[in-house]
């Protein structure tokens, strides 16, 4: 376990735990960007530069901003006073911890995980572009269609219907 992994892991887990535990929703999203940036740094550490930069652009740049906008548009004074956690929070915490216990136990006892540290594989942007344009070109096209449909769908769903009635 290298020092850089420990630092990044602590940063990521702290950011994400704060994102799920803080009271103010805007603070939650700010902590969330810290967690996303930590995950991007973990990708860079694993040698996946392109995925790390895509993570920063998509999550830190787009998803977090979108969440901040949604929180500001749905903010109401009563929501600041109401409790943060739902009435079933004990149940939720127990389920979360049980899931982690099962996963951790399986990972620790799995012989497949016993491999050593292989040499750093190469994943240049050129190789990724080659793969996207040849082997994965159909999934790429479907992804473009999905993103277009999601864009149009999000606009249609979030549109204010009162404008149409005039």
């Amino acid at each position, binding site marked *: *376990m290298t020092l850089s*992994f420990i630092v990044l*892991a602590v940063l990521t*887990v702290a950011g*994400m735990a704060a994102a*799920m535990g803080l009271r103010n*929703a805007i603070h*939650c*999203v700010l902590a*969330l960007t810290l*967690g996303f940036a930590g*995950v991007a740094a*973990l990708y860079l550490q*694993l040698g*996946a530069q*392109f*995925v790390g930069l*895509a*993570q920063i652009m*998509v*999550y830190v740049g*787009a*998803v977090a901003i*979108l*969440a901040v*906008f*949604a*929180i500001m*548009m*749905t903010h109401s004074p009563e*929501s600041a006073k109401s409790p*943060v*956690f*739902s009435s*079933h*929070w004990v149940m*939720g*915490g127990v*389920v*979360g*911890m049980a*899931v*982690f216990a099962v996963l951790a136990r399986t*990972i*620790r006892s799995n012989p497949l*995980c016993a*491999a*050593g*540290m*292989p040499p750093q*594989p*190469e*994943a240049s942007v050129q190789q990724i572009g080659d793969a996207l344009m040849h082997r*994965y070109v159909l999934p790429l096209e479907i*992804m473009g269609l999905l993103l277009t*449909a*999601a864009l149009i769908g*999000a606009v249609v*769903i*979030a549109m204010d219907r009162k404008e149409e009635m005039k």
Partner: protein
Amino acid sequence: MNPLQNYLLLSSLLFSIGLTGVLIRRNAILVLIGIELMLNAANINFIAFWRFGPNPSALTGIMFALFSISVAAAEAAVGLAIILAAYRHSRTTDLDQMNSLKG
């Protein structure tokens, strides 16, 4: 403890944090963010298995992670639009108050 196990343990911890947040938060937007955390944990697994797997030159893990990030972005956009529409309907994002389907 070898490196792959460290990454898998970290990602299962992030997954559990996201799952706990989905189950216990009242704000619908933060529940959606919890789902994003779980997707991020899955992406860490993809990249870790690509890095420590037997055939990294095929780039399968990278491709899976890239497509998963795009699907997560589409999901976040549509999910937040649905939350805005629900807010316009019921004037709240508190999930404990959205109980009109309760018997």
